């Protein structure tokens, strides 16, 4: 064991000396994931919540409200028809839909009469955390409605006129209320007009917020949303397993080349003449490769989770996926080293094979957007199965029995390649 560990230590030292390998193995995948992740996250870069809005009221007031939504910093708004809006959330392309029901505009436009304006909202259940932000920003718009009305004296004055007229015409309001408001509202109007005359730059902030607090600015009715979608909600959840493959490729090539380099360096002579077995020599290399693979995958998922908020709900499944993908690619590394024989052979063959695997395995185009024929071809690529294992352990929420297929394929492939490769590989030249 000590011998294996010192081989691992030595190989790590050697690999970390190679700046190119370090870049392509550790830095590049993170850049890749970050760049494409932000693109796939569908415009929700600068942290805006992407929502679909359907205006069923279609009045000037409701349209003004929609404009307020569009103008708000927190929301990225797409205006669409109701069914489209509901679908967008169901498919995961929007976090929430906001339906503006008929009659909304009237209630929204009048301050003191007409009742609380209501909105119907549906939020992607997997993004409940963000629904808080949505509620907050909608309420802020509701409050602003009061603030704007009250801070603009002329508008308030018009509002009051409107209200007085409404009260006078009202049939169902009790007489006492009618007379109270009939006295009270004109006095407020007089005060407002006097206030405006006294000080046109007046900013009655404190008073109005206090007043706004007395009303419910908006009523939000939440609906349950049944989710039905092909892709994950977080773009990084797709690009991290893809990026992983670039890191895996870096490690596989690094160790494959380092194995044949023992010949170039002449150090294989020393390994072979030392009192250790062939199994220990190959085992040390493989262990190093396996540890490196697990490290880069683990590190990338950690970054995915901590920096890009990719949810990891089942860490144990992820460990299983990482380990079986590790075994798979150690076998492939051994096979490439045996077939490639020389540094040039291994890197030429390696990059070629690994690139084709990548192209058809979903490391370049995500599996779930591939055309049908390509999905079929992808079955032949170990990359597909490793990405599926990673995705199954994360956003696809595979059960253990569902994980057996991709993980099992990687394990069997790895062990088969390892046996063939290690038997074929000539240590001494």
């Amino acid at each position, binding site marked *: 064991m*000590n*011998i294996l560990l*010192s*081989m691992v*230590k*030595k190989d790590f*030292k*050697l690999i970390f*000396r*190679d700046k190119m390998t370090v870049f392509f193995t550790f830095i590049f995948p993170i850049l890749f994931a970050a760049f494409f992740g932000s693109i796939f996250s569908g415009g929700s870069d600068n942290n805006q919540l992407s929502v679909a809005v359907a205006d069923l009221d279609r009045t000037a007031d409701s349209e003004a409200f929609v404009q307020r939504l569009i103008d708000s910093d927190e929301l990225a708004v797409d205006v669409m028809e109701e069914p489209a809006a509901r679908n967008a959330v169901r498919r995961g392309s929007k976090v929430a839909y906001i339906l503006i029901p008929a009659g909304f505009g009237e209630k929204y436009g009048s301050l003191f009469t007409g009742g609380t304006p209501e909105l119907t909202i549906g939020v992607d259940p997997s993004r409940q955390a963000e629904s808080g932000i949505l509620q907050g920003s909608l309420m802020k718009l509701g409050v602003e409605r009061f603030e704007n009305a009250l801070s603009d004296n002329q508008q308030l004055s018009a509002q009051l006129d409107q209200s007085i007229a409404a009260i006078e015409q009202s049939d169902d309001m009790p007489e006492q209320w009618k007379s109270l408001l009939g006295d009270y509202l004109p006095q407020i109007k007089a005060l407002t007009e006097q206030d405006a005359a006294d000080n046109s730059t007046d900013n009655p902030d404190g008073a109005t917020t206090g007043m706004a607090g007395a009303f419910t600015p908006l009523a939000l009715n939440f609906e349950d949303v049944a989710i039905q979608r092909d892709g994950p909600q977080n773009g990084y959840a797709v690009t991290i397993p893809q990026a992983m493959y670039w890191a895996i490729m870096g490690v596989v090539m690094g160790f494959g080349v380092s194995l044949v380099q023992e010949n170039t*360096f*002449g*150090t294989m*002579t*020393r*390994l*072979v*003449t*030392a*009192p*250790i077995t062939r199994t220990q020599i190959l085992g040390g290399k493989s262990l190093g490769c396996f540890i490196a693979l697990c490290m880069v995958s683990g590190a990338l998922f950690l970054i995915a989770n901590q920096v890009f908020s990719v949810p990891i709900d089942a860490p144990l499944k992820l460990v299983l996926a990482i380990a079986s993908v590790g075994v798979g690619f150690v076998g492939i590394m051994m096979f490439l080293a045996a077939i490639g024989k020389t540094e040039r052979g291994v890197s030429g063959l390696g990059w070629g094979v690994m690139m084709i695997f990548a192209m058809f395995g979903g490391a370049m185009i995500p599996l779930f957007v591939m055309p049908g024929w390509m999905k079929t071809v992808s079955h032949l690529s170990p990359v597909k199965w490793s990405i599926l294992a990673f995705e199954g352990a994360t956003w696809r929420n595979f059960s253990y029995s569902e994980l057996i297929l991709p993980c099992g394929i990687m394990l069997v492939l790895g062990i088969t390649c390892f046996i063939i490769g290690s038997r074929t590989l000539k240590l*001494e030249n």
Partner: protein
Amino acid sequence: MIRISDVSKSYGELLAVDRLSFAIQKGEIFGLLGPNGAGKSTAIAITCGLLVPDRGEVQVNGHRPVSKAAKRQIGLAPQSLAMYEDLTGLDNLHFFGSLYGLEKPLLEERIQWVLEFSGLTDRAKDRVETYSGGMQRRLNLAISLLHDPEYLLLDEPTVGVDPQSRNKLFDCVLALKARGKTIIYTTHYMEEAQRLCDRVGIIDHGRLLALGTVDELIGEHGGDGEISVTTAEQTIVKTTGRPIADMKALLDAHDDIRDLKLIRPSLESVFLNLTGRQLRD
């Protein structure tokens, strides 16, 4: 004792080692002298178990060279440098030492010793890449000493080394002999064999042509020596198989001798006599 019995090895058509047999005694420096391509490295590779011979066998203290027991007794300094140039000298020593399963304190002690022995202590923490050719050769030797083997196989240890470093290496080899090590030393420089080796095997085209102490080889195959006597009037030069008797006769015959020279044949002439070719091509 290392015993090589009737060993042959071919690469395709080419017979690199041809029915080689010899035995190496404890504590001696055994030289394998021959031109490039003579089969020296192949013989070394077979001796340490790197290559399996087509016929014949090798025994190291009675063990097969591929056995762990034999491997622990052999330290190989390959002809082509065998180390990680990207790592430091110390990293290399730690790694290769660990392959022999030495306990940490013992390994540290051995590392200190080989560094000092090879004069690399000051540069131990530098990358091997930055070493001079001579230093790399010394590290190549130092690595093979880590596990304190009984037998040292030094395959052309002075190739690519400047004369000063070469002398340092000679000192190292002699110091190792003084510590009781048994050394197989291959070279195509007859001066090295003559200076260092207790016994020398002369090898060409994979075959052992002659074996013995330097004196024995010269006596047997060196051919005639040369004597020259200078008197007041003349210089007499004579090629002779009996230099001492002839010199005595000349000394008796002349009174006014100013100078005299006795040039013994060298290993170079041994090789020339055995093969009809110069050692160095």
